[in-house]
């Protein structure tokens, strides 16, 4: 009977001697057969909206500009003359430099723990299953921080799996935002609620759409601010830098695949937008490996924000943030255009009646 390790050795051997030598030198997926269509479809699939790579690129540049302006304002309120000097002060402050891997894991735990008791201020629906935090094992250090769903009965918890390799080259500045993103009120909250929604066909409990899931998680980062977290202005800078990072992705993913950007150009652009080098290196390779996936975050967040503004404007005093959040979560994951239609139906129903939910 064949064994696990010999099979892995054989697979490694196949990769090294046969497969890898046939790899492509070009970074862009558009260099493959049917390349233009291949990337255009990837963009549509990952964003779940009808948008072209060129439009995504433009949107990214605009968002980078907008968020940078917000960061500059924050720098000035902290007494710095410009954003660059604020950034330099943060990056040179030993307080935000992890000494070891465990410190990063503990940091994530701390933020998730402080958020848990605050959730009822923002949501009617609450996650019933537990969430844990662990480090990415060394053999998988090319992976990024991610979330693995648990079982609907909560017997196996959801897992936040954190990138910790080369800890001294990392920063703790973004941890608060990323902890809310992967844990609560981000992925763990959304997915564990979706898994147990009543009265929907089962396939809808497990639907997966990057734009919805990642958009929700990025939107969730900001919710910490609304209930009084990001108390340290540097952590608040981290929140903005985390958002900037997702806007940067719109620019560089389309840069790599649709505009022939070199890896150096990608890294330089990320450095210029304060992405630390350890992260920039794995991220550049990630966008190269996985076309358009990184676009999902910003596109989804912008849609949810827009729907929230719409609900606030239409409903005025009747607007209830808990009901709005429940409405985003209680239909399960779906493409953004269908989410928009669904939430707009709900807004209409709320506006005309006393407030019965439409469901569905």
């Amino acid at each position, binding site marked *: 009977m064949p064994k696990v390790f010999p099979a892995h050795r054989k697979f490694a051997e196949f990769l090294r001697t046969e497969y890898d030598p046939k790899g*492509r030198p070009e970074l862009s997926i558009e260099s493959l057969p049917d390349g233009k269509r291949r990337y255009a479809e990837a963009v549509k699939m990952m964003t779940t909206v009808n948008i072209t790579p060129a439009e995504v690129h433009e949107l990214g540049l605009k968002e980078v500009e907008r968020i940078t302006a917000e960061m500059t304002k924050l720098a000035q309120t902290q007494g710095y003359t410009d954003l660059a000097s604020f950034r330099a002060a943060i990056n040179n402050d030993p307080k935000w430099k992890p000494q070891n891997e465990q410190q990063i894991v503990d940091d994530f735990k701390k933020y998730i723990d402080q958020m848990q008791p605050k959730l009822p201020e923002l949501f009617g629906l609450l996650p019933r299953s537990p969430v844990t935090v662990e480090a990415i094992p060394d053999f998988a250090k090319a992976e990024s921080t991610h979330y693995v769903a648990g079982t609907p009965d909560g017997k196996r918890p959801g897992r936040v799996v954190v990138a910790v390799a080369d800890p001294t080259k990392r920063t703790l500045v973004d941890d608060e935002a990323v902890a809310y993103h992967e844990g609560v009120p981000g992925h763990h909250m959304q997915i564990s609620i979706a898994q147990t929604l009543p009265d929907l066909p089962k*396939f809808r409990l497990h639907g997966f759409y990057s734009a919805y899931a990642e958009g929700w998680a990025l939107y969730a980062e900001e919710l910490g601010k609304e209930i009084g977290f990001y108390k340290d202005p540097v952590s608040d800078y981290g929140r903005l830098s985390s958002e900037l990072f997702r806007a940067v992705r719109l620019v560089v993913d389309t840069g790599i695949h649709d505009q022939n950007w070199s*890896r150096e150009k990608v890294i330089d652009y990320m450095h210029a937008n304060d992405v630390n080098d350890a992260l920039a290196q794995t991220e550049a390779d990630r966008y190269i490996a996985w076309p358009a996936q990184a676009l999902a975050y910003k596109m989804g967040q912008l849609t949810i924000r827009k729907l929230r503004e719409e609900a606030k404007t239409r409903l005025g005093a009747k607007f209830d943030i808990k009901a709005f959040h429940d409405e985003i979560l209680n239909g399960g994951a779906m493409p953004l255009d269908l989410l928009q239609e669904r939430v707009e139906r709900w807004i209409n129903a709320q506006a005309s009646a006393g407030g019965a939910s439409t469901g569905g």
Partner: protein
Amino acid sequence: MRYIVFGLVLAAIAPPSFAQIAPLADRVARQNALFEEFYQTSLKNSPERATAYGDYRYNSQLGQYSLAEIARQHAEADNFLKQLQAIPTEGMSDKDLLSHQLLERQLQREDVNYSLKNYEMPVNQQNGIHTRLADLPLSVPLDSVEHYQDYISRLRQIPRVLEQTTEVMRQGEKDGLMPPNLVLEKLPGQCEGIIAANPFLRPTTTFPASFSEADKKRLTQEITAAVNAQGLSRSSEVRRVPAH
């Protein structure tokens, strides 16, 4: 010819929802049955996914990853799409209509992916069968002796899964669907890193207290034999949300 033209004219002047459309309740029932069949089929096709959802009917199996199976599943999905599209949605509630649209979109999206043969590039440094399988000990239930037997059964299927994935990647070589070099150069080291870290023996260090000594000893031997490794050190279509 004349007959066909007549038919077309008749269709054009007929009111939109007419005679052949079944009563709403029947259509909704048919659609719900189709949703359930689709869901059950998706679990059967992906035992790792079923386990991730806490459904342990396929807990002793790993999925089939061969080219033939990919083609079979595609045909199966196309058949679901045809059946779904044959159900008229007139008069359905918002919820039923949205469910209809969601499954239709999902199946159409799979169709596009299949036509692009995206499945021929299944492995990269962020996500591949090799790193997913290395997460297996953390992605399966290990509460009973039966769960351990299921785990051992899955370990024994890892070589088959890697063989099938190799076959698919060879088809990618033929079709010129190859990842970039700078992705590929990371992969052999990841495989060797998995061997060095040996995550597969981890369950031999975490037996539930209720297990007998004899069971622990036997299961440890079987796990070690399946892995073909000595000594101790310390996924699966688990839904992994890739990263932040």
